[in-house]
């Protein structure tokens, strides 16, 4: 579905060059829910933003649906991005448009007719359970509801992938559960591939099929979560693999 080949990104700061992502290769399996976990500042968001080239890598390839997005001209890249919905920690809704107005935005950008738009917006809001809030402005919604609107907006253009950057990090645990259910539902019923960046172990445990561990700009581990076995108590500081699987093992990155 999505493969990153040896992507790197560095930022030049006052003290020199800082490598945010260093030669990471990663494949997201079609139809999977893929977690990207790691500590703050590890480069998770940068990695996710490379998947739709919001952050163009300094080197390496980003292959989505068979084409290298880093080589596409701007106009084609924009079209390619429409098949990849994005969801953010801070929602990034338009506060001056209603809930349905927000969901309609990607459809307006794609030039869909007003009647079709209305239909599709209703469908999407129904999917996230917010049809009764269609006429409200986002300021009047709770965090969880705002995130549902953002998810509905990301779904509007029928994307193949949903890229989620800490989608539950500003929500309480109950609301987090609700949002994760929505994402799982999207994955199961619509077959949308979901990539979730998070620093919360529970999020990965809850819904991810596969997980990649990013630490200090490098991919340090990657494994499937079906391998989960009885947990044994680690004596040293446990790695993310041990915390999630309850055992050490050989990386299959």
């Amino acid at each position, binding site marked *: 579905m999505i493969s990153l080949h040896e992507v790197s990104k560095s930022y030049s700061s006052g003290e020199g060059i800082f490598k945010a992502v260093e030669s990471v290769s990663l494949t997201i399996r079609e139809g999977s829910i893929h977690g990207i976990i790691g500590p703050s500042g590890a480069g998770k968001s940068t990695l996710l933003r490379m998947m739709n080239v919001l952050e163009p890598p300094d080197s390496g390839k980003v292959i989505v649906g068979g084409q290298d997005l880093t080589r596409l001209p701007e106009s084609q890249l924009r079209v390619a991005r*429409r098949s990849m919905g994005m969801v953010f920690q801070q929602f990034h809704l*338009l506060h*001056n448009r209603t809930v349905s107005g927000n969901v309609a935005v990607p459809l307006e950008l794609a030039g869909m007719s007003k009647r079709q738009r209305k239909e599709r917006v209703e469908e999407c809001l129904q999917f996230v359970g917010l049809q009764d809030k269609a006429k409200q402005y986002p300021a009047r919604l709770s965090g969880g509801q705002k995130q549902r609107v953002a998810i509905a907006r990301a779904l509007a253009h029928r994307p193949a992938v949903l*890229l989620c950057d800490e989608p539950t990090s500003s929500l309480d645990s109950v609301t987090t559960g609700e949002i994760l259910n929505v994402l799982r539902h999207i994955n199961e019923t619509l077959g949308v591939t979901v990539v979730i960046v998070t620093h919360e172990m529970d999020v990965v445990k809850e819904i991810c099929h596969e997980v990649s561990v990013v630490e200090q700009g490098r991919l340090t581990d990657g494994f499937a979560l079906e391998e989960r076995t009885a947990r044994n108590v680690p004596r040293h500081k446990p790695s993310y693999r041990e915390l999630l699987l309850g055992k050490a093992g050989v990386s299959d990155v």
Partner: protein
Amino acid sequence: MFDFSLMLEKFMDFRIQIAEAVGETFLMVGISVMAAILLGLPLGTMLYLTAKGQLRENATWSMILNGFVNIVRSFPFLLLVVFMIPFTRFLVGTAIGTIAASVPLAIVSIAIYARQVEQSLFEVPRGVVEAAQSMGASKLKIVYKFLYVEARSGLVLGLTTSTISFISYSTVMGVVGGGGVGDFAIRYGYQRFETELMAAVIVLMIVLVQLIQFTGSLISRWLDKR
């Protein structure tokens, strides 16, 4: 003691001239507001877009546009009016009269409003632009389907504040025969010692400014759903 009935009387005596002066002010300020919207808005948008870290980051253009805005705004206004006479004559055929006076006023208006626009756009959270990009929006669409939508109450409020400054600037336009309320107050009220008449005109201007501010604030608040 100040005589209010005399003030009213004078006002009625000169109502035709006052109406004419108000008409001139409206014409000058109206042209300036149009210029601000048609040229100040795009200029302010360009100031925002070419700034460091923005969508069309461009140090050269940023410097040129900022230079223009700063120079125009720091020019003592009367000097600008004089300095621009050749340009005004080139543009409207004469350097005297209400229309001619509107030219330097419009130039200042464009610069003033451009700054306001830039400020309002900078207040839009960065994430909105990022969300827009993730939806495959072109730069033009990002500007008017995202930035202008989120900044709209600030854009209106900025235009309101700017309009009030335009009125203030317009009061000195007597020097190039621009007329207007300010010129009227000076010529009749000040130079002919008609203190009551001058006071009447000042009251009129205060009412006018209040009305503009009130309307602007109202629209701005109504547009703001954040």
